[in-house]
């Protein structure tokens, strides 16, 4: 019966809320079907008062085994490296994190704040936030480049703002059923099984991308969101259009540009004036190309696409 502890640092609870939308398995199934012993969770924990204090201390001393430590939210270091801007149970949260990571079997960072700092770490990063093992793209973060948990793995990063509930539950189930050793991680320590394909993989607007038919404004019934509205689907690694959200849809399907929230740079360009929901271009060519495509390739591709574009592609396709 693996023990799981879930704590929140500089967090909005968005990943917890996302996790509670899980269905296969649901949060309750994790307990009843997979025997996960949820030691405590900020929204769900039953233990109160002295019991919680005792439990935390028991975990730190090794008396109670901590099989899975899930962390949501950024590690807050302000002010001056003390972490006092985020206190929990009388201590800086970052001190609890250090102690618990030393004894944990697996450490799972859930959501962008815990993986790379996320929104709180957006310039000027007032709370001096870091992710557990990254700050944006730079490796290290709060725990340092050399950190590995007792199972020999670095922090398992499940990014996204929020992470999809299935990405979280499937990792937890893999660990709980003894398959943690089969997890393979990419250069940003994301499970490859989820983060090798692109957000665009499976998008309903792929034909419009291929024929370079653009959605020039919101609320249209056709068109790809990449060319004008700043969509990052072709260069963002996530399964958002393979494993749908809330069992129904995805942002790009609904007409919202992908913001690249599973990548370390989110929010891109630090939300500088002129960058929100607008494709950044140089001489009419997007600054950020679909992954692996170079500028001359892009120009040839889109010229051919335009030339080949069938008439139906210019007409509404997602009709009433």
């Amino acid at each position, binding site marked *: 019966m693996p023990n799981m502890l879930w704590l929140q640092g500089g967090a909005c609870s968005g990943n917890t809320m996302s996790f509670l939308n899980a269905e296969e398995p*649901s949060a309750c199934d994790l307990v009843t079907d997979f025997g996960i012993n*949820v030691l405590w969770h900020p929204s769900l924990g039953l233990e109160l008062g002295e019991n919680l204090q005792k439990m935390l201390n028991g975990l730190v001393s090794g008396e109670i085994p901590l099989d899975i430590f899930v962390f949501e939210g950024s590690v807050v270091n302000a002010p001056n490296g003390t972490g006092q801007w985020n206190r929990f149970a009388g201590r800086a949260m970052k001190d609890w994190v250090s102690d618990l990571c030393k004894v944990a079997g697996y450490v799972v960072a859930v959501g962008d704040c815990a993986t790379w700092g996320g929104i709180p770490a957006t310039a000027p990063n007032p709370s001096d936030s870091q992710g557990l093992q990254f700050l944006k793209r730079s490796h290290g973060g709060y725990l340092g480049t050399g950190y590995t948990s007792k199972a020999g793995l670095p922090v398992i990063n499940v990014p996204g703002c929020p992470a999809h509930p299935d990405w979280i539950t499937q990792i937890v189930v893999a660990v709980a059923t003894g398959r943690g050793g089969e997890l393979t991680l990419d250069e940003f320590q994301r499970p490859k099984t989820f983060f090798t394909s692109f957000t665009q993989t499976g998008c309903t607007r792929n034909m419009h991308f291929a024929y370079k038919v653009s959605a020039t404004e919101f609320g249209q019934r056709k068109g790809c969101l990449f060319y004008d509205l700043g969509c990052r689907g072709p260069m963002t690694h996530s399964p958002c259009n393979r494993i749908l959200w809330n069992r129904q849809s995805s942002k790009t399907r609904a007409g*919202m540009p992908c913001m690249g929230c599973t990548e370390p740079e989110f929010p891109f360009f630090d939300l500088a004036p002129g960058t929100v929901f607008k494709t950044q271009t140089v001489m009419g060519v997007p600054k950020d190309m679909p992954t692996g495509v170079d500028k001359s390739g892009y120009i040839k591709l889109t010229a051919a696409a335009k030339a080949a574009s069938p008439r139906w592609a210019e007409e509404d396709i997602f009709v009433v």
Partner: protein
Amino acid sequence: MSAAVQTLDISPVGRVEGDLDIRVDIENGVVVNAWAQAEMFRGFEVILRDKDPQAGLVVTPRACGICGASHLTCAAWALDTAFKSEVPRNAILARNLGQITESLQSLPRHHYGLFMIDYTHKNYSKSRYYEEAVRRWSPFTGTNYEHGVTISGRPVEIYALLGGQWPHSSYMVPGGVMCAPTLTDVTRAWAILEHFRRNWIEPMWLGCSLERYEEIRSYDDFLAWLDEKPEHANSDLGMFWRMSLDIGLDKYGKGHGKFVTWGYLPHEDKYSKPTIESRNRSLRMKSGVYVGETDTHALMEERFIREDIDRAWYDEKSGQHPFDRVTKPIQQNDMDHDGRYSWSTAVRHEDNGRLEAGALARQLVNGGSHGEDWQHTDPLVLDMYRKLGGASVALRHFARMHEGVKLYREAEHCLREFRLNDPWYVKPTERDGQGWGATEAIRGALCHWIEVENGKIKNYQIIAPTTWNVGPRSDSGELGPIEEALIGTPIADTSDPVEVGHVARSYDSCLVCTVHAHDAKTGEELARFRTA
């Protein structure tokens, strides 16, 4: 904190969502003083400074993952009032529907996941309802806990049809919404709503039809409904109310008896040219302030807001309107109960002082006769407030759950009113100016102020329901609403003060709550004040 105080640090309590410490002094088994300490600062207002005018659409839903749709609603309306956009009728409905489905989601999730767990506490083992409470409401394994928490994910499937995902979409933008739903989106949304009604609201929560429940207009009607059938008395609502009275939750958690709501759900035909001034007369659910002592209602306006910061960790002028604030955090956030002790400001109405935000406030306000005659009114909760002698833990939570049926009807209204072939978005012209957007998150009054200058954000300010409720003392010494509501709370076991948890959780503040209880007689005052 000093060692002396840590030995008195009794109870970190979860399930309030976030980071909040509540410190209480207990004398003869009763809370005699309280301090609410918000312990986490991320600096969203600081992050938004100098950013793209639309950055709030991305950043503010991430202020709170539980009320993200509400933040997005405020961010979009704030930009609309600043840009002077036109917002098409369909977009008003699509924003409202997103807001409503987030709130419907929160009802069973908060009720089972956060609130009812406490009814299984050993403190209540002598209650005649205890055994049944444990069977239904035990975390993870309780029959109704599991069903309620799992089904809470369904309403936001409708949000996903509009915005792609919940939480954290940004589908509401100045000038409308990003989506253009099709007929299948609407029919699917109807099916999801129906599922929620047939599998939770009617069989488990009410034990009757929506129509029967809607006949209840007074406390007497409610009591008659409870007695009418065993299905009513044994429903989760019936059990909640009977057990709450049995364990005395109608006896404490009173608070200031002054309430605020911004109102919400702008009428689809009345707010397509949104301005700050015209908002009050455009809302389906009206705004207002209710003062219990004088039993009076009045409209609420953003210009009445003041933020006191003398007891909070900010270094700026106190008592300002949010448009004048600069959000300058104090680096060294030492805990000083005589001085500064929170990251939350003390929000007040310039005339009425501290006000309680939340579902109870909304229900008390919509019992009033102020506002437009076409706006929604419902006398039930106001009648209960008068007959039961004011607010309490039980009434506050009742008000929250009572809203569910109305929200359900409002969701139906949106789905009926969509004209699918009409526009969903009218591209606005970005311009400089001041804007304000407001709504009611399930847990209370939420609003955003924005000032755009030279094409970027000069100032962005947020006042959340939790800011209203968990704020520290005001400059004049008036306690924050939760602080006030804690006073008089009876504590059966000082080593496990579940009663303090009840009060905090009845406000549904978006902060994980830690309780530190102190003996008022033996807890040495000097030591207590030197806790940093």
